C-alpha cells in the first residue's frame, strides 16, 4: 500500500510527470530557438536546462492580483482542478512495466472524461476572470474543444479497436508483436493533430493567441496561479505524448536485452525516448506553422479529420473481419 502511494507521488507518478513537464518546456524552447536561428535559454543550469524551473519558482513569489469583477471562488480554485487533471490521467499510463499505477478495466473512458473535464475547467476559469479578452478566449476555447473532441475520440476508438480493449494496459499489452501505428497510421496522425489542438500549440494556439487577445484565457492570472497554469500546460503536453505512445507506439514495450539491467529500467528508457520523440515532432510542427483562424480550425476538424478517422475505423473493422488483426 505504502509502496503504491510512493509510486503514485514520486516515481513514476506525479513527480516524474512534473519533471518531464519542465524538460519538455526546455526542449520546446530550445528546438524552436534552434530552428529560428537563436540559441534559446542558456543561463540557468547546463545549457539552460533549469530555466523552466527557474521561471516557475520566480512566478511563485510574484504578487497575485485578483480582478475586482472576477468570481473569486472559481478564480482561486479552478487552477488547482486544472492542475489535477493531467497528473491524475498520467496514473493510467504504464511507464515502468506493462501495468499502470491506477489502471482498471475501462480507464480509457476515464481518460476521455478527464480530457473533457480539463477543457471544462479551463473554460470556467477563463470565464470567471470576466475581462473582454478572456470572454473572447472562452468562446474560442469551447468552439475549439467541440471541434477537436470528435476526431480525438474517434482516433482513440480506432486504437482500442485494434487491441480489442478499453483499458490502456490492454491496448499496450496487445502491442507486444506489432504496434498499432502500423494498423492505424491515419488515426495516429489525426490523434497528433487533435492533441496539438488540445494542447493549444500552433497552428491551434487560437484561444491563447497573444497578438489578438493578449494572453487569451491566461490574461488575468498572475503569481502562483499563473505558475501552476503554465506548468499544467507542460504536464498536459507530457500526458498527450504519453497517451499517443501508449495507444499507438507500444507504450514502454521494446526489445528486452540481457545486460543485467532490470527490465523496468529498460521499459522506462524506451517510454521516455518515445514520448520525447513524439514531443519533438510536435515542437517541429509548431515552429513551422502559422496560427489559423478558429473557423478554419473547425472546418479542418469536422470536414477533413472526422471523415478520415471514420474511414480508419472502417478499415480496421475490415482488417478484423479478414483476420489480419488478431487480438492477443
Amino acid at each position, binding site marked *: 500500500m505504502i509502496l503504491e502511494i510512493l509510486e503514485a507521488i514520486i516515481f513514476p507518478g506525479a513527480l516524474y510527470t512534473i519533471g518531464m513537464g519542465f524538460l519538455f518546456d526546455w526542449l520546446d524552447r530550445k528546438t*524552436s530557438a534552434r530552428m*529560428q536561428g*537563436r540559441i534559446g535559454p542558456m543561463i540557468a543550469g547546463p545549457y539552460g536546462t533549469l530555466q523552466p524551473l527557474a521561471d516557475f519558482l520566480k512566478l511563485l513569489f510574484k504578487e497575485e492580483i485578483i480582478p475586482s469583477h472576477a468570481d473569486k471562488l472559481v478564480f482561486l480554485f479552478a487552477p488547482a482542478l486544472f492542475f489535477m487533471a493531467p497528473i491524475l490521467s498520467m496514473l493510467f499510463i504504464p511507464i515502468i512495466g506493462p501495468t499502470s499505477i491506477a489502471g482498471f478495466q475501462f480507464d480509457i473512458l476515464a481518460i476521455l472524461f478527464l480530457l473533457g473535464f480539463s477543457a471544462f475547467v479551463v473554460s470556467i476559469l477563463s470565464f470567471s476572470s470576466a475581462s*473582454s479578452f478572456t470572454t*473572447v478566449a472562452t468562446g474560442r476555447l469551447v468552439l475549439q474543444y467541440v471541434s477537436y473532441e470528435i476526431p480525438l475520440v474517434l482516433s482513440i476508438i480506432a486504437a482500442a479497436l485494434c487491441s480489442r480493449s478499453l483499458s490502456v494496459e490492454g491496448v499496450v499489452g496487445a502491442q507486444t508483436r506489432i504496434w498499432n501505428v502500423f494498423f492505424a497510421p491515419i488515426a495516429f496522425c489525426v490523434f497528433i493533430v487533435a492533441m496539438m489542438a488540445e494542447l493549444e500549440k500552433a497552428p491551434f494556439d487560437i484561444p491563447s493567441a497573444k497578438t*489578438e487577445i493578449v494572453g487569451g484565457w491566461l490574461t488575468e492570472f498572475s503569481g502562483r496561479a499563473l505558475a501552476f497554469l503554465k506548468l499544467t500546460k507542460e504536464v498536459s503536453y507530457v500526458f498527450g505524448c504519453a497517451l499517443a505512445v501508449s495507444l499507438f507506439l507500444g507504450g514502454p514495450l521494446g526489445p528486452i536485452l540481457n545486460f543485467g539491467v532490470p527490465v523496468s529500467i529498460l521499459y522506462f528508457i524506451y517510454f521516455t525516448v518515445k514520448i520525447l520523440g513524439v514531443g519533438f515532432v510536435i515542437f517541429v510542427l509548431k515552429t513551422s*506553422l*502559422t*496560427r489559423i483562424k478558429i473557423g478554419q480550425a473547425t472546418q479542418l476538424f469536422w470536414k477533413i479529420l472526422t471523415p478520415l478517422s471514420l474511414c480508419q475505423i472502417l478499415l480496421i473493422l475490415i482488417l478484423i473481419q479478414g483476420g489480419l488483426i488478431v487480438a492477443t
Partner: protein
Amino acid sequence: MSTDVDKRREESAGLMEYSAENLVPFGPIHPSLKEPEYFKIILEGERIVDVIPRIGYVHRGLEKAAEMRPWVQNMYMFERTCGICSFVHSLCYGQAVEGLTIFQVPKRAEYIRLIICEMERIHSHLLWVGLMGHWAGFDTLFMWVWQDREVVLDLVEAISGNRVHKSMNAFCGVRRDMPEGMEKHIVERMKFMTDRARYYREIIDTEETMLERTQKVGAHVTQDTVEKLCAVGPMARYVGLRQDVRLNNPYAAYGEVPFEIVTRNEGDVQALLRLRLDEIIASANMISYAVENLPDGPIKVKIPPVIPAGEHSSRCEAPRGEIFYYVKSTGGRTPDRVKSRQPTLANLPLALEILKGQTLADVPVVLTAIDPCFGCMDRMSFLDTEKNKQWTWSGEQLRQYGINYYFPDRKDKA
C-alpha cells in the same frame, strides 16, 4: 458628471447602440501594437461590425517645434519622425527647403540619396514581412527575416556610420561620401538580398497555413474604395493603381535609374506580402545599378543659413507610401511654418474599411498590413464634450494658439 461626459462621448462616436460586451478594446497598450493607439472594436461573436479609432497618443508637436529651430537643425529633427523610414523624412524636408534656394544638388549626392533611400525601403519592407509573420502567429518567419535585415543595416552603417537615424542628408548634398571600394561588396549583398526575397516569396506562396491567414483577407475592397479613401504607397499599388512618386514625380536620381513599378491586382493581404517582397527585389536592382554608375564630383554645395522667403512643397515615396512636406519661409533663420503628412494617416481609413466584416483574428494582420507607424502620424482634433460640438481651426488660429501656449506674454505678435 464623468459618466455624463462619457455618455455624450459615446453618443458622438455612434457607440450607444452597442452594449459593452460587444466591445473589445484594442490598445492603447496591446502586445500587437508597438506604439500606443486605441481602436474600439465592435464585435458580433467573432465578426467585426465597426472599428472606431482614437489617435493622438504620441503627438509630439514636431511641426511647432520646427518653427523654433534653425533650418539645419530641423532636418535632423524631422529625421526623428520615424525610426524606420528616417532618411526619407529628412530628404523630403531638405528638398522642400532646397526648392527655396538657387543651389543645385550635385549628381553624386543625388545618387547617394537614392542608394540610402532604397536601402531604407528594403529594411523597412523586411521588417514589415517579419512583423506580418509574427502577428499572424508565424514567429519563425519573423526570426529569419529579421536576421536577413541585419545585412542591409550593416551596409547602411558602413555608408553612413549609423543604423537607424542615418543623419546623412544635408541641404544641397549629403554629409558623407560613399566609402572606397564598397561597390563590389554592395552588389554582392544585393544579390544575396534578391535571393532571400525570392525564397520568402516561395514560402509565402506555398505555406498553407500562412496562405489561409492572408488570402482573401480584405478582398472586398475595390479600386474605387482605395481611390476614394486616398490610400498611398503599397496600399494603393496592391489593387493595381500605378501610384508611386518615384515614377509619377521623380526626385533625387530616380529619373535616371531604371525603375520598374510593382503592382498587383488581388487586393488582399497576400498581395501586399508579394508586392513588398517584389519591391525589395526592385530596390536591390536599383541599388546595384546606382552603385555601378555612381557619377564623380562633389557631394555637397555649401548654402547660407538664411533661406530666402517663399513657400515650397515636396513629395517623396517613403516605404509606407507618399510623404509630403510643405515649408514656408519669411527669410529668417527659422521656418515660418512646416507641415508634414505621413502615409499612415492616409492609409488608416482604408485599414478600418478592410476590417469591417472580418473576424477578430484578422485585426492584427490587417492593421499590420498598412505598415502602421502611429508615432509618425498622430494629429490633434478638437472635440468639446461639454458643449457636444466639434470644430476645426485654420492654420492662423492654430498658430496663434501655439504662440499663446508657449509665450503667454507675447500676445501682440500674432
